[in-house]
């Protein structure tokens, strides 16, 4: 048996070494990521996109690259962005990511984008925005009344929104499907941590969500599409080597198991 600490060292090295010595393995784009890209790309400028930061800080290394890549695409297409969070820690993260990416594209707060803050009770928040966004969020994260924000003029509910994107580390996109897609027939895309990705393929196949980004790999694919290499692509070498390391460990474990079984009966 390999010592537990040795396994930990092997995993640490398989992640660290490829980050220092780049292998430059070529990545490829999957159809589900392409769907999100195409959906955003075909929107007219000034269309409004909603981004819901439905995650905690624990998944930051996965969700931030996805959110950054999507926002870069949105702002480069001159789309208007409304950000908010349905989980508390997504508030500070969403606010910062929006500000950072907006600054890269010289976008102005209140004119090109807004951040509305946090709202608990996802069912009520999602359903409420289908009727009246200003009722759910009377003011933004800076405590400015939505009536005083120029970008929010003429935006009442989902009818004025072109696409909703849930950046999540849990099953929040499923609730977006339950309440925003089913009741208000709104287009929803999902950018979720890899651990959650397999849960959303049924919604993808049934057309209830438009496209899916799954974790750091999804971010890396999106970075290829927008031709802006970022954290996602930089991490793919380490991802490949560490996966290989775990597969080798599983093979070794099974070899030991079968040899033991053969010799001890």
């Amino acid at each position: 048996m390999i010592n537990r600490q040795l396994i930990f060292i092997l995993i640490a090295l398989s992640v660290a070494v490829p980050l220092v010595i780049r292998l430059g393995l070529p990545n490829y784009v999957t159809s589900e990521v392409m769907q999100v890209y195409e959906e955003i790309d075909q929107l007219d400028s000034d269309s409004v996109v909603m981004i819901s930061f439905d995650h905690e800080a624990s998944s930051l290394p996965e969700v931030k690259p996805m959110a950054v890549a999507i926002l870069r695409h949105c702002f480069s297409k001159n789309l208007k962005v409304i950000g908010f969070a349905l989980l508390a820690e997504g508030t500070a993260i969403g606010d910062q990511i929006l500000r950072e990416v907006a600054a890269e594209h010289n976008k102005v707060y209140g004119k090109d984008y807004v951040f509305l803050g946090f709202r608990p009770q996802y069912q009520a928040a999602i359903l409420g925005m289908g009727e009246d966004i200003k009722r759910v969020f009377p003011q933004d994260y800076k405590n400015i009344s939505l009536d005083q924000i120029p970008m929010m003029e003429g935006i009442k509910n989902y009818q004025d929104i072109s696409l909703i994107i849930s950046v999540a580390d849990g099953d929040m996109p499923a609730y977006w499907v339950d309440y925003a897609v089913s009741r208000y027939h709104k287009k929803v895309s999902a950018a979720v941590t890899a651990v959650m990705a397999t849960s959303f393929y049924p919604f993808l196949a049934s057309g209830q969500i438009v496209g899916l980004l799954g974790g750091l790999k999804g971010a890396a694919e999106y970075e290829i599409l927008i031709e802006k290499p970022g954290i996602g692509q930089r991490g793919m070498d380490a991802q490949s080597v560490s996966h290989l390391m775990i597969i080798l460990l599983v093979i070794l474990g099974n070899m030991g198991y079968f040899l033991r079984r053969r010799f001890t009966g």
Partner: protein
Amino acid sequence: MQRAIPITVCFVFGFFMLLQFFVPHKLSVLAYENVLDWMQIIFVFTLLVGAASYIRLNTKKVVQTQAGWGYNLVALAGLSLMVILGFWKGTGENTPFLWMFNNLQAPMQATMFSLLAFFVASAAYRGFRARSWEATLLLLTATVVMLGRVPLGNLISHWVPDTANWILSVPSMAAKRGLYIGIGLGTISTSLRIILGIERTYLGRR
């Protein structure tokens, strides 16, 4: 009365929200929007109650100098600092609250979850055995998906990512769909039981 009131409230609000879906009248929409508002307001108090309970528990341990009370003091200090900074200087751009979140809370939380990378690798080595046909199927699928979703898989052969994509969008997707349909049926029956007052576990034992 102590049980009758909550059961009645549950029935009235549950039945109204269900009925409202089929009756989109102006008045019903107005009441519906109010109920949605109320849900958000009441729910936020559950978060506050959770925080109050955490403060109470830690304070008790510190006051009674129970084993490890120093750590409880650290927890209370962290909590107090965030609350003071948040209410005093705000939570937005360039605030000490956000600085604390970025440099203390977020790195610690992300690291806590990254520990799982080591444990999941160790668990895979020790427990991932092809003991039966089902276990072999699970092991093979995991291996193909792990290889197929990273650039390395594509480098080996385009069949690796193609197979991984097929697994995800056909058999794996279909099994999850079966689970969703089951969950859906379960959700409906449980919701009906709650509204009709048959399911009362949320009321507690007494």
